[in-house]
């Protein structure tokens, strides 16, 4: 079946998630849908699977307009999706999961079908095993076979290689090629260019809810990268160079859990005065890195030193980091950094390190008033943190930050901020705070990283794949490293796997 999106738009309130998106996925091809986080890929797929209603435009299957009101409508037509996180029933067995959602037939016929399909694709699945005991990759295999058994003719894959082993990847890719060859329409949502390159026949790039590029294989990577991350920005005026000093943070042979792949790194040192930008796609290890430095995540292996003090491997680590004037500002402000139902003045009271019995409401109200003025926070001292908008929550967090901090760890500091507020945040960080302070920040915006950092670390799959001074690298290299384009062997491995099966 050919799937055609015509002028699809989607709004969430006043936010435009998709604007006039048109693309066609032809029968028997694998169509890649790429773009950075928040580009609109998932939203588009949710519309196709009936989970979300479109605000405008049409979806055509084989040239006919269709209405998708519920996920069931989509399933009836033969549209199926393989989700990033397994959407199965962990307490049921492989066979039971396999037989759900399709018209009921006898248990024997389900078993036969499962065995037949598993054999055809080279998957090894024990029908009676409980699914919770399996790996993510195996659960994905069951789901894939189930969709095939249910006669899915349009298959959507959302980041299918996240959390699966290289061996499973080497089985999955030929399977997908085989399915496309047999006439299935496959849409692959990904931000890993190496995988897109080895699988897709066509690629559409989304950026900020718009189609920015469409091309057939073979692909020209610089073009794709530019479409994904925007044109190479003109050389903007760099902030004043800061002088660097002693080592303030060092990590050695770290292994830590967290996010999808955890984090492994050999050795890393940050100096005072440095501004280090952490680039990488969502979940590649940047958040874990920041939390390790803040003492909030305890590494399974390895040592972390902050200002020549070794962080203990216990819950005390975050307190010790705090005493060394290390602050951490998480991206999820309301979840991790602010208190719902507690007023702005009370936040200042909580932040006040001087011990006192009373809350000192008057004094903290004055502080809040002053912060509201200095930081242009739209709110009153008695408002609670959850009354504030995202941008104002970030301003509040900065206002709460001790200006004498020596190590400032920021997770996506301009998240949800408009351009001017974002610039204001950076002015504050670089000019008001001490120039001796070491600033480490992560951001999904490559431009922000290139513009503000002196040094860039690029994370991919839980590892640092690039560590370079900003002056010695460029937009293209960082973007390539973010999408895994440094390891050429990996691609050839996968291609080899494909040719083996073919």
């Amino acid at each position, binding site marked *: 079946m050919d799937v055609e999106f015509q002028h699809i738009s989607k709004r969430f309130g006043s936010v435009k998630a998709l604007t006039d998106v048109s693309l066609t996925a032809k029968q028997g091809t694998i169509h890649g849908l790429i773009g950075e986080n928040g580009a609109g890929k998932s939203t588009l797929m949710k519309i196709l699977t009936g989970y979300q209603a479109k605000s405008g435009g049409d979806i055509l299957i084989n040239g006919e307009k269709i209405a998708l009101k519920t996920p069931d409508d989509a399933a009836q037509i033969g549209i199926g999706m393989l989700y990033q996180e397994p959407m199965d029933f962990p307490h049921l067995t492989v066979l039971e999961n396999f037989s759900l959602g399709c018209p009921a037939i006898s248990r024997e016929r389900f078993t036969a079908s499962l065995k037949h399909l598993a054999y055809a694709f080279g998957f090894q699945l024990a029908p009676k095993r409980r699914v919770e005991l399996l790996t993510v990759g195996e659960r994905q295999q069951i789901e894939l076979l189930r969709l095939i058994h249910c006669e899915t003719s349009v298959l959507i894959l959302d980041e299918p290689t996240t959390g699966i082993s290289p061996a499973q990847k080497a089985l999955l890719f030929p399977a997908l090629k085989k399915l496309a060859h047999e006439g299935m329409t496959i849409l692959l949502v990904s931000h890993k260019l190496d995988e897109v390159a080895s699988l897709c026949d066509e690629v559409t790039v989304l950026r900020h809810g718009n189609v920015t590029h469409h091309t057939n294989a073979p692909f020209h990577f610089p073009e794709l990268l530019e479409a994904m991350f925007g044109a190479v920005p003109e050389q903007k005026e760099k902030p004043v160079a800061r002088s660097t000093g002693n080592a303030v943070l060092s990590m050695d042979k770290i292994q830590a859990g967290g996010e999808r792949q955890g984090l492994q790194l050999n050795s890393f040192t940050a100096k005072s005065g440095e501004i280090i930008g952490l680039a990488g796609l969502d979940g590649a290890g940047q958040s874990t890195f920041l939390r390790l430095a803040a003492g*909030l995540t305890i590494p399974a292996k390895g040592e972390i030193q902050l200002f020549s003090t070794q962080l203990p491997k216990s*819950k005390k680590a*975050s*307190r010790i980091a*705090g*005493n060394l004037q290390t*602050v*951490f500002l*998480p991206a999820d402000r309301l*979840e*991790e*950094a*602010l*208190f*719902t*139902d*507690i007023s702005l003045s*009370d936040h200042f*009271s*909580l*932040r006040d*390190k001087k*011990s*006192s*019995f*009373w*809350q*000192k409401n008057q004094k903290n109200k004055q502080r809040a008033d002053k912060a509201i003025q200095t930081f242009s926070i739209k709110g009153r001292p008695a408002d609670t943190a959850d009354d504030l908008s995202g941008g104002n929550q970030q301003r509040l967090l900065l206002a709460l930050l001790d200006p004498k901090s020596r190590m400032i760890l920021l997770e996506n500091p301009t998240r949800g901020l408009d351009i001017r507020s974002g610039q204001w945040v950076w002015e504050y960080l670089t000019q008001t705070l001490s120039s001796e302070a070491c600033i480490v920040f992560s951001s999904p915006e490559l431009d922000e990283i290139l513009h503000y950092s002196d040094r860039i670390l690029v994370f991919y799959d839980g590892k640092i794949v690039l560590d370079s001074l900003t002056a010695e690298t460029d937009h293209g290299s960082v973007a390539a490293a973010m999408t895994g384009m440094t390891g050429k062997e990996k691609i050839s491995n996968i291609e080899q796997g494909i040719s083996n099966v073919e």
Partner: protein
Amino acid sequence: MVQIVKDILAAATLVFGFTSLVLFIADAPVLDAFKHIWLGSFASTMKFSQVLAVWVPLILCSCGLLFAFRANLWNIGIEGQVIMGAIGGMAVLRFPGLENPVLILTLSFIAAMITGGAWGLLAGLLKTRGGVHEIFGGLGLNFVAQGFILWLIFGPWKRPGIASMSGTELLPHKLWLSSPPGWRIAYAGLVVAICTLILTWLFLYKSKLGLKLKAIGKNPRAALLYDISPEGYYLLSIIICGAFAGMAGFMQITAVYHRLIPAISSGYGYLALLLVMLAGYRIVPIPFLALFFAGLNVGAIQLPIVLQVDSTLSGVIQGCCVLSALFVLGMRQRRKQL
């Protein structure tokens, strides 16, 4: 605030409606029953003093629970903390060789707070160190405390010659907290309860400790960034709650029963849990709600005698109260979700 008043009215209506239905089914005269509950609780100063005698431990337990709930802890173990407080207090009262009653009672009061607090600490440690949710830890510790008090009453502390459910030997009169003539409530009990209310209000709403507990209750992850260790404050809040519960246990032995009985806690810990939830975890409605529950509790006692209804009926009525309270709370939750 208006919502709380509405909730209380709704709960009261439900209590009366539900109770009337039960009385009707039990073939008891409905209006008479309410009249007797009223007469049995608020009609005379003596009756009213009995109500106050229930009000005191309810207030102490409720104030303690406010601290625990502030940190988002469900201290179900409060029942066991009352029992352990009573045991700790009694241990001092039984100590031979001390002569000065004021000194003995003071020491006993302190001991009750310490044992109650320690029992709370145990539930807290199970949570912070052992990963046992405070509801299950507390429930388990309640059984242990109940077993311990039975063992004491039937074992080491039994009355000379006989061991009986009626408890240990009566305390000498000089160790009874003194009451106004004709009243069944000790001065000291009232004073302690009122002081506890005021102190709780001060700590929770005016002190930095109260603010920190609230912060931890709202968002323990964020608290870490403010250098507030959730574990430490969890322990502190549950110790305070246990100590207040221990005070309630002390009042039960020195002002009400004057001995140790197996049911020394009278279920006031559980009742206080419901009371605090019904009050929306705020301190202002608590004295009034506690008075209502205490009145019902005392008033229902004489129903079996006056109306010849089965003695279990008062229990059923209290059950109705609890169910109505839970129902109103459930409705409030649903309203929040909508």
